[in-house]
């Protein structure tokens, strides 16, 4: 069985003195990926509503 490398939370957060770099990497990546998913979901919902309310429009002005 493999064990956790860290013996405490504060040690884990400090990342051996590289906390800023490690968490700066993982944090920004998490924000980017979550934001992309949430933005896509919102866009799909808006499209569904808009297509329902304005059936005469052929296509949104800004597609991408």
């Amino acid at each position, binding site marked *: 069985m493999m064990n956790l490398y860290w013996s405490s939370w504060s040690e884990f957060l400090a990342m051996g003195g590289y906390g800023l*770099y490690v968490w700066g990497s993982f944090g920004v990546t998490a924000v980017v990926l979550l934001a992309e998913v949430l933005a896509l979901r919102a866009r799909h919902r808006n499209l*569904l509503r808009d297509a*329902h309310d304005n059936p005469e429009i052929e296509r949104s002005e*800004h597609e991408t």
Partner: protein
Amino acid sequence: MNWFKYAAPQRFYALSGRLVPWFAAAGVLFTVVGLVIGLGIAPTDAQQGDSYRIIFIHVPAAWMSMFVYLIMAFWAGIGLMFNARLASTLAIALAPTGAWMTFIALWTGALWGRPTWGTWWVWDARLTSELILLFLYIGYMALHAAIEDPRRADRASALLALVGVVNVPIIYFSVKWWNTLHQGASVSLSKAPTIATTMLVGMLVMSLAFWMYCIAVALMRTRTLLLDRERHTAWARQAVHQGLGAK
């Protein structure tokens, strides 16, 4: 089973709608396992200390930035050759995700470079060619957005995407062809990996997580674009009706 029937936008819309939750769930699972291994179990690196843990997102993101470009250019080319709407839509749907992967690779690279090399950025072959990749993605999206007619936009931007393919081998082999600050490949098919087994497993699991993420997000965006382009058609109206009913 006739796979070509899924080339029809309405079939693809329905099929991908069922597939997205599975890719998303697999992505979450691989991410959790990969993070536990990479941040929790893997030991520290003798030379770089814990800053090396950035590898668990830097390398998968950098791989995906190149893979997504190749897949995007492939579908753009298919769309151009066979005048296939779905292929062209897949290509343009991949571009923002590829651009974000490139951004993540550059961002995490800067945060890794600072403690390791003492600098956020150098104009060496690997970093510069990866930055050019980001500009290629942005240029491709900008060109597509600038042309009013979607089919003409597909064709013009496909040419740009195909020309840009030449940059991908330059990125990949840059660390061999030029003297650079960037280290060589961590994983290669021709020789034993230069990193410990736990690190390798963590990196591969995180790579699977990034693959699943990119597939799920690209499928989501393809569905939205297809529905938008075809919103005047009978199948799209029905899909809109069903989509709103489910909420």
